[in-house]
């Protein structure tokens, strides 16, 4: 085996869906034949040029890719250190990176002859993206969303309904994203023959973590080329926010073997990582466990019961993280840090004022970390941050957090 292959960080997962000890296929027998069939179909599509041609066409004409790589000049000056570039995936159709992956899965679902699409959603961005692509292709769409999230993300709920999706508020458990995922899995177990489960992040049973990563990797591939064009070299540091971790995996993956590129994932620290059930930092504050089909770092108690996370950002409010991130964390290829709600809110406002970009609360976490490290770095250091979503959906949450009455 050639050295460069032997040392590659890009060969995972193995045939059992493992990234080191993480990942796997921890699902009930009813679902096992389905995920094996999905894996076969995906493996076939992956090497089928016509599949990628269809993706590329839609990425270009429907989503608006490539998304720009933007030099945040005023922000860079303000921070007084490293050059900050933003990968503008918030400019995609539907306002976030989520649609990159949804297109891939829906094209696959169509190839598999599935007519009914189900999805789970937290902040609503994945739900909106799924509802959008289903509308485009005339497919039935059912979105499971925690009752608590239905309340705090009302604009996205209305968007999904406008797009013809049925939004099912989930009240089982505590009515959050993980419960929405439980109910989506229950739906899939019940409607196995005609239904395709479109998972929104790089988690779940194999092949989802690898498949979603591959669809999101367009972010990193573009960023690599665009950085070459802008600076004639690779960035020094990549920064991205992590809930389940799909936008981060999409940016990181094409750079994994560029060993001089430092990789930083930013988890939601909520009210502080040292406060139990007040944060969503699975890697910083959790330990390995098995949930939703994969082994990964989870927020859990001493008995192995899953804990609820907390974050001002509904999109980061998940007690787990994609298994590939757990692996990158354990082998030390990527570094993972936590940012609190307060820090994210501050970065949110800074970005609005400095760059005229209203960021979603999710990338505001990444930006908050950028504002911490950039001032300490030399001016020729290049940071590339994934601006994975726009903040229109979050203005009500932010207003509330800032004590502003929008009805007043």
């Amino acid at each position, binding site marked *: 085996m050639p050295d460069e292959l032997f040392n590659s960080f890009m060969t995972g997962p193995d045939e059992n869906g493992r990234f080191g000890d993480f990942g796997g296929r921890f699902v*009930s027998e009813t679902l096992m034949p389905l995920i094996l069939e999905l894996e076969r179909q995906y493996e076939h599509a992956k090497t089928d040029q016509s599949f990628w041609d269809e993706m590329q066409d839609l990425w270009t004409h429907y989503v608006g890719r490539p998304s720009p790589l933007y030099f945040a000049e005023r922000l860079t000056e303000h921070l007084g250190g490293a050059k900050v570039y933003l990968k503008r995936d918030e400019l995609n159709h539907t306002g976030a990176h989520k649609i990159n992956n949804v297109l891939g899965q829906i094209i696959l679902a169509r190839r598999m002859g599935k007519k009914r699409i189900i999805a789970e959603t937290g902040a609503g961005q994945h739900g909106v993206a799924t509802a959008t692509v289903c509308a485009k292709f005339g497919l039935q769409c059912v979105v499971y969303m925690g009752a608590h999230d239905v309340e705090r993300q009302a604009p996205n709920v209305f968007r999904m309904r406008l797009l013809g999706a049925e939004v099912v508020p989930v009240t089982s458990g505590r009515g959050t994203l993980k419960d929405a995922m439980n109910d989506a899995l229950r739906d899939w177990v019940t409607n196995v023959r005609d239904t395709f489960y479109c998972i929104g992040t790089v988690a779940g049973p194999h092949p989802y973590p690898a498949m979603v990563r591959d669809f999101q990797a367009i972010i990193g591939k573009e960023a690599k080329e665009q950085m070459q064009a802008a600076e004639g070299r690779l960035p020094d540091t990549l920064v991205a926010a992590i809930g389940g971790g799909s936008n981060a995996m999409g940016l990181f993956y094409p750079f994994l073997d560029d060993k001089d590129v430092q990789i930083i994932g930013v988890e939601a620290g909520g009210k502080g990582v040292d406060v139990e059930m007040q944060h969503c930092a699975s890697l910083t504050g959790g330990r390995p466990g098995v949930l939703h089909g994969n082994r990964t770092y989870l927020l859990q108690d001493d008995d192995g019961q*899953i804990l609820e996370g907390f974050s001002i950002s509904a999109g980061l409010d998940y007690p787990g993280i994609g298994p590939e991130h757990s692996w990158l964390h354990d082998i030390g290829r990527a570094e993972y840090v936590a940012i609190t709600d307060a820090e994210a809110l501050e970065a949110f406002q800074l970005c609005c004022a400095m760059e005229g970009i209203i960021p979603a609360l999710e990338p505001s976490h990444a930006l908050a970390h950028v504002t911490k490290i950039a001032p300490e770095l030399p001016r020729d250091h290049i940071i590339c941050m994934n601006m994975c979503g726009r903040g229109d959906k979050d203005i009500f949450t932010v207003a509330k957090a800032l004590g502003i009455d929008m009805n007043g």
Partner: protein
Amino acid sequence: MTRIDDTFAALRSEGRRAFVAYVMAGDPDYARSLQLVKGLPGAGVDIIELGLPFTDPMADGGTIQLAGQRALEAGMTLQKTLQLAREFRAEDSTTPLVLMGYYNPIYSRGVDKFLHDAKQAGIDGLIIVDLPPEEDHELCLPAQEAGLNFIRLATPTTDDARLPTVLTNTSGFVYYVSITGITGSAAPKAPEVAPEVARIKARTDLPVVIGFGIRTPEAAREMAAAADGCVVGSAIVSEMAEGKPVEEILAFVSRLAEGAHGA
């Protein structure tokens, strides 16, 4: 031979079908749960499935999920579930106890420690819903090594090509999931289930027991007749959810058992 093997051998020699009852350990609290479990053999239950509470029971319906939540809120844990088994076993040395649940509490405890404790507590078998054959090295193989049965679910989606994979490393009995769905949902139809059971029995000598969606003594009779026995879970757990006295629940269990044994 485990207690499960002995039980099926005895039932077979008497020409009877097995009645398996599922209850959630610690629902609504430790004391009443223990009282119910202790009363099950007297109510005609041949094998007890003891639910291990978990926050995220993906393959279960609302009834079992709420039972798990009640148990957890009352302070139930894996260790207390094994303690409950131990207390039951001190008075009953023959009725098989099967622990049914999800992998994470076991993984969190540590597989070796768990198997040691479970064996000591008098547990005879495990049904771990989220461990398919593809993950056998996690718990299935160590469990069999430790002398515990590992009971696998076969489902309507388990086709002929896959069936041998599912049956390999299965012991005690095969749990046939009668429907594609979650526990406590739509009732299965005997004419659809019978050929599926025959399909499984053509490939294994293990007893086949049918579960999911069986709620009445009549359904218990019909389903047990189609196989070597049947399981009732959600219907019993619902009685607990309604706050009925344990004696009343056991009377309902007796009627279900009579149904299954009348097959």
